[in-house]
């Protein structure tokens, strides 16, 4: 079974149908383990128990950014290599990546309030993630307003690539802006290296979230393929009525 099989929607669906239950099982298992480790992790010497929020916040951040990278690769697949399922993949990533970015922002905000005294601050990282969310919402808006799914997908692909170029620029510019205007307070997370007792749960949760991402991604791709099938069946039906 070669990678080329993944290009055929019907075969792809069959593969997904077989693989998905295993993925779901693995995801549930890892989430269970991760959550157990996370909730039983020791308190941080500075932040106390609120460090437990980190186990949600950091993986969510990773996956929010990973999502956009994935969308950019899918965009290249759509525009350059013309892979048949590339645009389906890109479209499927968008809501999932946006959701994780949202989780990152909200959990970060809830972490910030008890730890640093404020729900929000225009720190370089927060601001960059907020702009990332806006870019995601822009892509979702494109898919939402496009009547022709093919066109919408190509437009979204271009926006994904433009966004990919712009994200490091945003990070850099916000960093610089922030350095100039940042008030004197310094954010410190207990120590520069994370203790293994906190690092291990973090990595497990990271892996669990990644599996969750992949599972959802494949499931949404399946839905999208079915949706397009329905659309072409309806179009053909309409053409027959006219013929």
């Amino acid at each position: 079974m070669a990678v080329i099989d993944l290009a055929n929607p019907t075969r792809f669906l069959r593969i997904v149908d077989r693989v998905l239950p295993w993925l779901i099982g693995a995801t549930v298992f890892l989430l269970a383990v991760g959550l157990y480790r996370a909730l039983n992790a020791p308190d941080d010497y500075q932040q106390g128990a609120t460090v437990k929020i980190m186990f949600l916040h950091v993986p969510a951040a990773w996956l929010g950014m990973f999502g956009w990278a994935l969308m950019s690769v899918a965009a290249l697949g759509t525009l350059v290599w013309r892979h048949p399922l590339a645009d389906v993949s890109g479209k499927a990533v968008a809501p999932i990546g946006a959701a994780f970015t949202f989780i990152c922002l909200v959990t970060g905000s809830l972490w910030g309030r008890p730890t640093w005294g404020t729900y929000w601050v225009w720190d370089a990282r927060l601001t960059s993630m907020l702009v990332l969310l806006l870019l995601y919402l822009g892509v979702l808006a494109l898919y939402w307003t496009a009547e022709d799914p093919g066109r919408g997908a190509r437009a979204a692909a271009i926006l994904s690539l433009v966004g990919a170029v712009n994200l490091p620029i945003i990070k850099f510019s916000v960093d610089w802006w922030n350095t100039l205007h940042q008030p004197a307070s310094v954010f410190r997370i207990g120590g520069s290296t994370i203790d293994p007792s906190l690092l291990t749960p973090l990595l497990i949760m990271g892996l669990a979230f990644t599996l969750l991402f992949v599972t959802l991604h494949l499931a949404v791709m399946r839905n999208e393929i079915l949706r397009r099938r329905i659309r072409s069946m309806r179009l053909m039906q309409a053409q027959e009525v006219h013929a």
Partner: protein
Amino acid sequence: MNPLAAILVRDMRLAVRIGGGAFMGALFFLIVITMTPFAVGPDLALLARIGPAILWLGALLASLLALDRLFATDHDDGSLDLLMMGGVPLELTVAAKALAHWLTTGLPLVVVAPLLGLMLNVDMHALGWLTLTLAAGTPALTFIGLIGAALSVALRRGGLLLAVLVLPLTVPVLIFGVTAANAAIAGPTPFSPAFTILCALSLASLVLGPIAATAALRHGLE
């Protein structure tokens, strides 16, 4: 006449005619600046402090609203299809249109900015520098907005979608523009670094904007 020059002149002529909307941007800019004290209060010190930021935001929004015009009218009457089929590389055509757009929409903003800066009590000595940042930055706004305009004309939905797409992409321009302007006024930080980066962003967008916009037009309208 060179075809690109012809496109440039054509777009500029169309823009200044009735229904062209050339100086609407400047008018909108004026209105936004006028409304700022109503929202913020007439405290001159406060206005002076936020003046550069408000001017930049106003310029950004004015540019944004005018971007609709860039491709929509050509798309509606079919001339966009003709331009796409023409012998000139589409990237250059698009760049020429964008240049015409900046000359008729962006440049008026720059010209009007010093007057509006006075209304906001911006430091007189800094007005020149502020205007310079706008002159350097508004091309970036136009050429980045070009991408959004191309994406949304292909989807036949203008307006707010365009704004939603373009605004996040213009964040760096805004940041460096305001930083440079503030540096000229108050700054312990020097004007040059931010200004240089602003120029770099504009130059980069001059190249990348038309490329991305062309891709958007080609893929969207095929």
